[in-house]
């Protein structure tokens, strides 16, 4: 039997996707598609909330974990929190897109259709507990983004971004599938629980070679999604070339989806073979942080800088797991890792979307993403400059902006395991957070402390108006970054709920 309440978020979103397509065909102003999309996203939140607070609601049939389709599709607090995160991020991403698309007269209807479809994929990924569903969800997330990356059709950079993204995307999908096929072959199961049961002792068996290749190819597929070093090469080019709202979407929603898939598959499916990938995650985390940060030091373009920054941030997100698994942690301490990751993902969504929001707003006016062109921003656009400072320093993890809490719980979970390997990773992370500050501050220095370069039409820019939707998005994210920073329980409560995922591991 199908639990429609549990499926309501996906169903409503699917309905919205259809509605957007339909509205696009109607003879109305195109921004109605965005409005429908926003309303739909908003509506999607409702069942997520009712599911989340099921216990205190009268009409709610059953509480606790809901399993469907033979355990392939699960609604638990973890998936609900992440679904909420996806919806929220998508909501902001849509807001970011509206003004951008309108100003450049892009095709609007299809854009929202694609974006919402991609979000639907993310929702599916959060709940999927077998390889097929996971794969389909992943492809649903990724496929539309290929097109979105190339949305500025006339521009070569955008085309290039799309093609690169596409080729690497399908290639990694193929690798992922090959890995999944081998895993299936060795264990004979597609569900995560089945795979886990089937993988007991397999490393000592004859098929260990196949299994290792399978597991690693699978993880590789996700490493591409989260652009972990050394699987990150597409990221800066794609981020720079794609329309900025798409970049924002990629760096938050799509990336978070990748992390969700990685977590689910690693923990639920490959839980018996942690030795196989634990060290790998440690290395990925360390490399991503370090390489991402070091390269970001050299960037002169804000978007590209944020691209490398998001690689580094991805490294920070991987740290809790890298450390926990390298330290062979289980049980309650692993909850810390989940807690940290979920917290980080939520806060990261706020600050990264906000940062891109500012980049869009400023880019709209200045027509440049070069850091040196942003000099003196504070003198003619103090509000935007201040927000720029807030988001960038939040990314750097400076209290009292939300980022500090993300970093704190990240360090906390690392040290919870208490091993030497974890400590080493913590030290690497600490040094990296100092390096990161340097390049974030580079943008801030330019905006606040340097003179306006000649030829910038200051008066004109001062007159310029930021689209209301963008203003709204910035308001949301600014509030989020500041309020969460001052009162982190807003996020930590969610993450608390989500960490039960680790129980029983």
């Amino acid at each position, binding site marked *: 039997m199908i639990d429609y309440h549990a499926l309501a978020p996906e169903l409503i979103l699917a309905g919205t996707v259809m509605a957007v397509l339909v509205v696009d065909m109607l003879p109305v102003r195109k921004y109605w598609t965005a409005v429908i999309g926003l309303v739909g996203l908003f509506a999607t939140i409702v069942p997520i909330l009712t599911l989340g607070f099921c216990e205190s609601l009268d009409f709610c049939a059953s509480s606790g974990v809901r399993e469907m389709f033979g355990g392939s599709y699960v609604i638990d607090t973890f998936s609900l929190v992440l679904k909420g995160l996806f919806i929220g991020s998508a909501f902001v991403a849509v807001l970011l897109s509206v003004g951008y698309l309108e100003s450049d007269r892009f095709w609007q209807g299809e854009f929202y259709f694609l974006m919402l479809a991609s979000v639907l994929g993310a929702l599916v990924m959060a709940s999927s507990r077998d390889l*097929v569903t996971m794969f389909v969800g992943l492809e649903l997330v990724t496929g539309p983004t290929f097109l979105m990356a190339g949305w500025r059709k006339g521009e070569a950079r955008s085309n290039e971004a799309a093609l690169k993204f596409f*080729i690497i995307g399908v290639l990694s999908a*193929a690798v992922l599938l090959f890995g999944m096929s081998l895993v299936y072959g060795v264990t004979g199961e597609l569900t995560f629980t089945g795979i886990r049961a089937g993988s007991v002792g397999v490393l000592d068996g004859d098929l260990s070679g196949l299994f290792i290749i399978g597991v690693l190819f699978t993880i590789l597929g996700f490493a591409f999604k989260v652009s972990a070093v050394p699987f990150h090469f597409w990221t800066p080019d794609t981020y720079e070339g794609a329309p900025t709202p798409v970049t924002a979407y990629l760096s938050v929603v799509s990336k978070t989806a990748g992390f969700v898939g990685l977590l689910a598959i690693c923990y639920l499916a490959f839980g018996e073979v942690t030795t196989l990938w634990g060290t790998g995650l440690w290395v990925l985390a360390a490399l991503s942080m370090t390489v991402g940060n070091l390269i970001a030091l050299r960037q002169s373009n804000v978007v590209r800088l944020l691209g490398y920054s998001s690689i580094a941030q991805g490294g920070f997100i991987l740290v809790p797991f890298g450390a926990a698994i390298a330290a062979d942690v289980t049980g309650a301490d692993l909850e810390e890792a989940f807690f940290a990751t979920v917290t980080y993902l939520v806060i990261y969504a706020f600050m990264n979307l906000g940062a891109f929001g500012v980049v869009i707003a400023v880019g709209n006016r200045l027509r440049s993403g070069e850091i040196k062109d942003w000099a003196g921003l504070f003198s003619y656009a103090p509000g935007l400059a201040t927000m720029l400072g807030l988001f960038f320093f939040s990314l750097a993890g400076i209290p009292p902006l939300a980022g500090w809490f993300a970093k704190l719980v990240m360090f906390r979970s690392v040290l919870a395991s208490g091993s030497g390997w974890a400590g080493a990773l913590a030290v690497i992370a600490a040094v990296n957070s100092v390096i990161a500050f340097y390049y974030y501050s580079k943008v801030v220095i330019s905006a606040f402390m340097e003179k306006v370069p000649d030829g910038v039409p200051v008066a004109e820019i001062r007159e310029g108006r930021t689209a209301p939707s963008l203003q709204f998005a910035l308001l949301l994210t600014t509030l989020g970054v500041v309020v969460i920073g001052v009162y982190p329980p807003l996020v930590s409560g969610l993450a608390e709920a989500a960490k039960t995922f680790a129980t029983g591991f």
Partner: protein
Amino acid sequence: MILGQFIILGAALFSLGVYGVLTRRNAVLVLLSVELMLAAVNINFVAFDTYARDAVAGGQIFSLFVIAVGAAEVGIGLAIILLIFRNRQSANVDELDLMKL
């Protein structure tokens, strides 16, 4: 049934696909090479499914999904390639270096 041969076939196809992806300059050929890799995956799935006598035929179902998704990807890919071709009269992937250092 001799599983080993199917695995080798799958691996060989996959490797051919990889080779193609790495060496072809034309984006359409790259795309076709990826399809070759997906074909390898399908062979694997079906072979494993049959070998294990999977009661729910998971491998076969998966391969159906792979075919469907692969078709969608080709659609997307060709659209992008067409776009690029229209803009610069070439579909060679090695000319994509606008954003290099």
